[in-house]
Every structure is written in C-alpha cells, then in structure tokens.
C-alpha cells in the first residue's frame, strides 16, 4: 500500500517551483477566511451579504486539499509560538470531504433557515465551526491542535442548540459538559506528550514518535483514547451524540454528524503512532469499536425519528472507524490511517447527504417523500457497502487493514446491521412527509452532495490503497460485498412483514440510567454550600485563622530542618 505517499489527485506540483507561496497561502486562507468572516459579521453589511457567500467560504479548503503537495508544512508564527500547518494524506481526505459538505450544507442551510430570525447567529457559529474543522485537519503542532479542537468543539454547541427548545437546551448542556471533560483529558495528555520533547510546543509527529519509549506511554494513551473516542461517540461515551445530533436544525445535524465527529477521528490518527505495533491498545480500541458498531445499530433500530436513527448510525459507523484504527495499530500496519480517513470521508459525505434528505422529505408531500426515501435508501445502502456504490470501495479498503478472523468477520457482519438500520431510516424518511413542496434551495444541494458521495470514493480508491479500482469489481469481491447487504435486506423485509413491538429506546440510552449522577452532583453541591456557610461563620473562621498559623508553625518546627 502506498497510502502514505498519496499524491495530490490534482497535481499542481509543476506550479510548485514557480509559486511556492501559493500552497502555503492556500492553507492559511482556508482557515482564516471563515474565521475572519465570523468576526466581520459584526458589520451589518457583511451580515447581509453572508448568506450568498456561505457556499464559497470552503472553496480555499477544497483547493488546498486537491492541490497542496502532501507533507508541506507552513510555519505561520515563528519560534517559540510554532503555529504550524501541514497536509498529509489523511488530513487531505478529511479536509476535502468536509469542504464539500460545508459547501452544500451551507447552501442548504440558507434555504432551510430563510425564515428564521436567528439565522445570523447560526451563520456565525457555522463559520466558527467550519474554521475549527479545517484547522483541526491542517495543524501540525500540539498547542495549535488543542486550539483548533477546542474551536470546533465549542462552536458546534451553537449549531446543536440553535433551536433552543427544552430538548435542545438539555442536549446542548450535556454536550458542553462532556466537551469540557474531553478538553481536560486531552490537555493532560498533550502536556505529557510535549514533556518528552525538547520543545514546549513540539510538532505532533515528533512528540508521537517519542511516545512508544515515553515513561508516560500508558497515561498518554489512556487519555488520548478517552478524549478522542468521546468525540467519536464510542460506547459508553456516545450518550451525547444521539441527543445533540437530532435536536440541531437539519444542516447543523449534517455537519455535526459529518464533520465535527471527524475531529475525534483525526485526533486518533494524529496522536497514535501508526508504524509501531501497540497490541493491547489496538485490541481494546478494535473491540470497543466493534461493540459500538453493533450497539449503535441495535438502539438505532428502535428509533422513530429519522434524525435519531441517523445519529445512532453515526455512533455505529464511528465504531467501525475505531475498529479499523485499532486493528491497524495492533499490527502497526502501514497505510491504516489513510484508509481510516478514506472511510471516514466516505461516511462524512454520505451521512451529510442523508441528513439533508431528511429535511427535504419533511418539507415534502407524502408522495414525494417516498421518492426522497428512494435516494436516501440508496445512500444508506452505499454506507452499508452495496457493491457498485462508492461505499463498497470504502468497505473494500478497510478489509485490507482488518485481517480475516474474528474481527474481520464481525466487521463484515456489521454491514448487515448497517443495512438493516438504513432500511429503517429510509422507511422513516418515507413516512416523514407532511405537505407542500420543498424549495429548490433544499433539493439541489442535497442532490449534489448525494451525487458526490456516491461517486467520489471511486475516484480516490486507487490513490488511497495503491490498488487499481478493478480489484473491487472481481466476482469474488462483489459477492463478498453483496451477501451482508442481502442478509440485512432480508431481515429488514422479515421485520417489515412481522415486526415485534419494541419500545423506542430514549435517545441517549444508558444516560437515563445515570440519573443518580445528577442527584449525587446536587448532593455534593448542597453539601459544599452548607459547609461553606459553616466555614464562613465568625467563630469558625477565627479559629481557622489561628489554626492555619499553628499548622504552618508546627510543620516548620517538626520538620527535620535545621532552623
């Protein structure tokens, strides 16, 4: 596999000697443009023009993903600040995919929110999240990664909580709480990583290269895995995802499920060493991923709203990505990260398009909703890996990493589960029609994204795996891709014919068994307030004052130090 040396599909290297500044500027502009526009939105004139501009803002990122030579790094701020940008193969895949999703979903959002008085605020959060997501795929030094990661994570709150319903408030608060927790885990990991190097803010690559021999290897790996799988929604850290992704406005859900969770994926890819085998760690990650893949399907099947079914599908699919990464680092397989990013980019486009489809169906008359469900179903089957769709190429690629055996079989079978969940989703989409006709501003971006999602994986396959695309079209490969989908469809038909009555699992599932945590928190707070009231009474405080003096004096006196 030549994943590591993935050359830019659009080869502008001929331009390189003449215009070396061009690629560097592209990377900077990709991040700076949405960021600057977010702040420029304070100016009323810019704010009015913004809906028309939103489609074009991700353009520099798209061009950068296509044209910038791999491995090029730009030092934006000199030592000792070290704000460094670099593009490698996984970063380029995710950057390119996300820029396409941002473009189409941006056009869609402006039509979707055309009557919403709070649209300007949504656009600002949109731009900030976009800037953060591009940055997270591009930055190469530890501190800037933390900054970019915080930007994309916290700004996404504005997208999730936009509708400001009671549900959205609760989902948003949970999201924020877990985001803060994730940031705390990661800063501890990053500080330990950086401590091993001579640099206060090293390149991620250099710091990770030292990780296998670091005295803090175990804590760093634990914290990195916890911090990033929290963002990816791996069981049992997935509780926030179905809540947050289903309460957001449709375009917000699309980028949350499509792009924001990929910040967790790129985090794992950046902060785990690819070529050094980590057997135990890989097995744990792979196992957790596989479990999540099935768990997401099982809970998702009971959902009655298409967006929640999709959110659980994201949980399941991120489980697949985690399983692939886990299997890769288990053996130190070269090319794992590029293929994992390829699969994630495939999911990014498909899931984005599927969310947009839900919004189209909800604005359509029932009859038309069935037509939308047809497209949605096709996208779903592509996600499950139906041969001759783009998704099948991505499925083929990850099989190169996950060896035959228990893990490989489970991964193949999970496609059957995906098919089942996607059938459920298509059915829910078909039923979600109300009345009226969706505006073209919704239909066109959704169709464009659906088309891209189905086609792009074919174009990238050879560059990612180093194999000719034809290998995925041999009869054996086609059969291997077909039977899980067929099994899934058969089970779906069986369930449609004679469905058992299963109650809907409330979104957030195991969260609802954790109610005692909230009660404990309230008890602790109440106890602290009561204790504070006691401590702040005069006699207690006066005694404490003398006590502190006595404590320091006693410590000094009894310590074995010559005075």
């Amino acid at each position: 596999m030549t994943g590591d040396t993935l050359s830019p599909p659009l080869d502008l290297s001929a331009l390189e000697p003449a215009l070396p500044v061009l690629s560097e500027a592209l990377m900077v502009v990709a991040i700076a443009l949405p960021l600057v526009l977010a702040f420029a939105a304070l100016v009323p004139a810019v704010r009015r023009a913004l809906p028309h501009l939103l489609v074009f803002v991700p353009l520099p990122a798209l061009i950068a993903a296509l044209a910038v030579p791999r491995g090029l790094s730009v030092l934006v701020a000199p030592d000792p600040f070290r704000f460094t940008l670099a593009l490698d193969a996984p970063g380029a895949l995710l950057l390119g995919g996300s820029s396409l999703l941002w473009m189409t979903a941006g056009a869609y959002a402006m039509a979707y929110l055309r009557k919403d008085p709070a649209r300007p605020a949504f656009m600002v959060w949109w731009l900030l999240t976009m800037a953060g997501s591009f940055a997270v795929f591009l930055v190469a030094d530890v501190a800037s990664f933390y900054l970019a990661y915080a930007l994309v994570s916290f700004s996404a709150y504005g997208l999730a909580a936009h509708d400001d319903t009671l549900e959205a408030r609760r989902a948003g608060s949970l999201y924020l709480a877990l985001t803060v927790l994730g940031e705390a885990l990661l800063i501890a990991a990053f500080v330990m990583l950086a401590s091993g190097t001579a640099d206060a803010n090293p390149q991620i690559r250099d710091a990770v290269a030292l990780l296998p021999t670091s005295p803090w290897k175990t804590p760093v790996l634990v914290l990195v895995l916890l911090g990033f799988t929290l963002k990816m929604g791996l069981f049992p850290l997935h509780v926030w995802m179905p809540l947050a992704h289903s309460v957001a406005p449709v375009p917000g859900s699309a980028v949350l499920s499509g792009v924001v969770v990929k910040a967790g994926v790129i985090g794992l890819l950046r902060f785990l060493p690819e070529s050094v085998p980590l057997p135990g760690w890989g097995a744990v990650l792979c196992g957790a991923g596989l479990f999540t893949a099935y768990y997401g399907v099982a809970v998702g099947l009971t959902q009655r709203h298409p967006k929640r079914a999709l959110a659980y599908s994201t949980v399941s699919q991120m489980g697949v990505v985690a399983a692939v990464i886990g299997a890769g680092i288990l053996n130190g397989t070269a090319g794992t990260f590029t293929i994992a990013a390829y699969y994630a980019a495939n999911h990014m486009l498909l899931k984005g398009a599927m969310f947009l489809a839900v919004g189209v169906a909800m604005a359509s008359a029932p009859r038309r909703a069935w037509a939308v469900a047809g497209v949605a179903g096709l996208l779903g089957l592509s996600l499950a890996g139906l041969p001759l769709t783009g998704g099948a190429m991505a499925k083929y690629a990850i099989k190169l990493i996950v060896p035959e055996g228990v893990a490989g079989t489970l991964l193949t079978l999970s496609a059957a589960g995906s098919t089942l969940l996607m059938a459920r989703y298509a059915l829910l989409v078909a039923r979600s029609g109300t009345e009226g006709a969706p505006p073209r501003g919704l239909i066109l971006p959704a169709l464009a994204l659906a088309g891209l999602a189905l086609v792009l994986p074919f174009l990238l396959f050879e560059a990612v795996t180093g194999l000719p695309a034809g290998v995925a079209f041999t009869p054996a490969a086609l059969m291997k891709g077909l039977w899980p989908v067929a099994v899934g469809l058969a089970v779906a038909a069986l369930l449609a014919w004679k469905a058992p009555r299963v109650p809907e699992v409330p979104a957030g599932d195991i969260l609802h068994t954790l109610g005692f945590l909230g009660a404990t928190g309230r008890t602790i707070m109440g106890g602290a307030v009561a204790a504070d009231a006691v401590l702040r009474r005069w006699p207690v405080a006066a005694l404490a004052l003398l006590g502190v003096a006595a404590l320091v004096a006693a410590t000094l006196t009894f310590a074995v130090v010559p005075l």
Partner: protein
Amino acid sequence: MSALLVLAITAPLLGLVPLLLLGPRTGERAALGMLAVNVAITAGIAERVAQGGRALGYVVGGFAPPLGVGLRADGFSAAMMLMAALVLLFTGLFAMTGPGDMTRKVKARGSAGMPATFFILLLSLACALNLAFLAQDLFTLYVALELLTFAAVPLVCLEGKAGQLSAALTYLLFALFGSVLYLLGVVLIYGLYGTLDIAHLAGLMAQGTGGATAGAALALMSAGLMAKAALFPLHLWLPPAHSGAPPAASAVLSAVVIKAPLFLLVRLWSDLAPLPLTQVAGPVFALCGAAAIVFCGVVALAQERLKLLIAYSTAAQIGYLCLMFPLAASDDGPWSALAWTGGTLHLVSHALSKAAMFLAAGLIAETMGHDRLSGLGGVGRVAPVSVAAFGLGGLSLMGLPPSGGFVAKVMLLTSALQQGAWWIATVVLVGGLLAGGYVLRVVVIALQHPDSDAASGRGLPDARECRWRALIALALAFGAMLVGFMPLAPLPFLDIGRPVTWEGLLP
C-alpha cells in the same frame, strides 16, 4: 538609584489634590490622568528592569538599609505593578462620568459614573499597591497592607446599602485580625534579628539561627497574609464584599487588591525564608490552594446570582498561585522556573479576566435590573458586548486557548507532572472542569431565548448595555487573551533581580 520608584508611590497621591480642590468632574479627569501616568511610570520601571537586566533600587533619604528604608523593583514586582496599574486605569475609565451619563434617563437607571470618592480610593489603592510591590522591609510592607485595606474597605460600602455595610465591616475586622498576626510576626523577627530589611534578613535566616521562633514568626505573617488574600479556609469576607460592591469596585478588589497579600506571601517564602523552609511549608499552602480550587469551585457552581458566582470563582482561582509554592521551591531547576512563570502568569491573566468579568456582570445586572441567573435568559441580545467580555474572560478561567489562563495551566501542569506531583496536576485539571461548569452555565443562559412564559412574567427589558463601558470590559478580556501568546517557556524577566540583594544597587 532610580527616582521612578519614589514617583510610583507619590504620583498617585498628587492626583488627590485636584480631586479635593476642584469640582468632582475636573477632579475625576485629573485622577484618570494620574492613573495613566501611573501606567507610564510602571511601564518605565518594567522597561528599565528589562533593559538593565537587574533590579532597580532606591533608598529613601539616603539612609542605606538596614538603617533606612529601601525600595526595590525586580522583574516580578515590576510585572505585578504594571498589571495593577493597567487594571486600575481601565476600571477608572469604566467608572468615569461618560458623555450620556448626565441625562435623567440614564441617571434613573443608576448607570452614571462613580462618585468622586471612588477616584480618591482608586488613587490611594494605586499608591498602596505600588508601595506593597516595592517596599523592602517588613514594617513598610505592613504600612502598605494597612493602607490597602483602608482604601479597599470603603470601596465595598460606597453606596451605603445595609448589606454592603455589614460586608465591609466583616472585611475590615477580618483584615485587622490578619494585620495583627502579621505584625506579631514582624515583632518576633525584629526581636530575633534586629532588622526588618528583607535582603539582610534573608542572609541572617539562611545562617540558621532562628530556631522555632523564626518559624513561628513566618507562620504568623503567612496566616495574616492569607486572611487578607481570602485564601481558603479564610474566605469568609470575600463573597459578600466582592459581590455586594459596585461593579467597578468589585473589579479592582478581585483583580488587584487581593493580589498584593498573595504577592507578599510569595515574597516571604521565596525571598525571605531559606529554601529548605519553603520546601517544608510549601505543601501546606498548596493544600490550602487545592482546597480553595475544588471547594470554592463547587460552591461557585451552586450560586444563583451572577456576582456571587464570580466572587466564589475568585476565591477558587487564588488557589492556583498557592499550588505554585511546592513546585517553584523544588530543587529541580528548569521545572521550578516554569512553575514560577506559570503561577505569575496565572496571577496576571486572572487579574485582567476577572476585572473584565466583574465589569461585564455589572453591565448585565444594570441592563436587566438584577443578576439572578434564572432570569438572565437571552441577555446576550440586549448586552452582547458584555456577554462577549464575560465569555472571553471566562476562557482564561477555564484554561482554554488562546488565553493567559491556558498558558499558565500548561506550565503548572508540565511542572507538576515533571516533578511527579500528580495530585497537583489533578487539582489543576479539576479546577478547569469546575471553571468550565460555572462559566459556560452563564454563557449558555445568556445565549438562550429570553424567557417569555407567562408564569415568570419576565421578558427582556427595553434597556441596552452601555456600549462604551462594555467595550472597556472587552478590552480587559482581550488583554487576558493576549497573555496567552506568551511562549511556553520560563520568562527570564521574572527572574531579574533574584535572589534579593542590595549589592550594586546602593551607592
């Protein structure tokens, strides 16, 4: 010899003259001018210290210590002075009578500038703070602390409300207890060594002739300073005083006034006490700091009023500086230097961000007519700049980049982990989580739709925030963010002039 040091102490007092002689409006402008001059003087001192690479010294009246009184500015104190001067100037600008303040409508809302008394107190604070940062003998420091307390207490009860008076009285009494303990310690030291000059004392103490008495003296002085800094568990006076005062007063109280005793606590243990003693006593302070961070953080989470929340956050945040003691006093050179820089940067960025947050909270309360969190839904629409200032200031408390709080947190974490102090690292992280909880809680409420349900009967008021005041708060918050662009390495400036000596500084 540098006359700038004397000027730093006397110039603020000169500003009092026009305030007392001319009318309040003219006097107010003169006072602001003097606060600006104060910034220029402290910047000049910092610049000279940085240029010369050594401390500046001045002996009052030409009598060299230990006989006379010496002033001395090293890197650490120059940084503190500049920070305090900036916060005082910005708060003064916030409190001045603005262009629209004389209209009756604004007056009715109570948002006019502060009375002339406020500026008298502000100038006195400037003088007291500069003296505390510069003085080199324990008794002059006592005078500075008293001056500080007597300028700070009236700030609490400036409006004369009943709650403010009782809060001010609590503050005054507890600060006096602190003074008594401090003075007791000074007396013991004088009895033992016959001098109060820090540089000479440091030499004498290092020879190890103090015995248990020296230890008791240090302990008494430390407890006194902790009482004045409201370090847990001695924080009884802080929440009512800092939350009840007018916003501009709260800002200086939380941002700079409690930093002076903390500064002296550091000076006591880094400059005066020999290193082995500091290594023994350090964990005690760190324990108090850790308890402050965790306990007061949890209590802040439970608060229902915005200003009380910020006040408890102050009580929590001063704990970070105390975590620095065992780390900075260790024998592990580079990592202890990192902790030293981290603690100082935390102090500076907390001062800027907390001033911004208190000012913003004042504007929010003024716009809404109250500061109950449950009724602040949607305040982001009527006070957007204030909410932005609060949020950006909060970034520093949470330790998120780009902010001074982030840089400080990374330095303290790195130092703690390198020295194997896992419990300190854990406390730093937990403190960040708690700060995230209470800051984001406010921001989330502010971003929500206004509560329009009939039950509460509340909507958004017609009033809008005072825009130019909100911009001042925002500027302070940006200041805290700017500190975040410091390189992640020990700052050599803070080590200038340490350890404390008079050599080369005196004629």
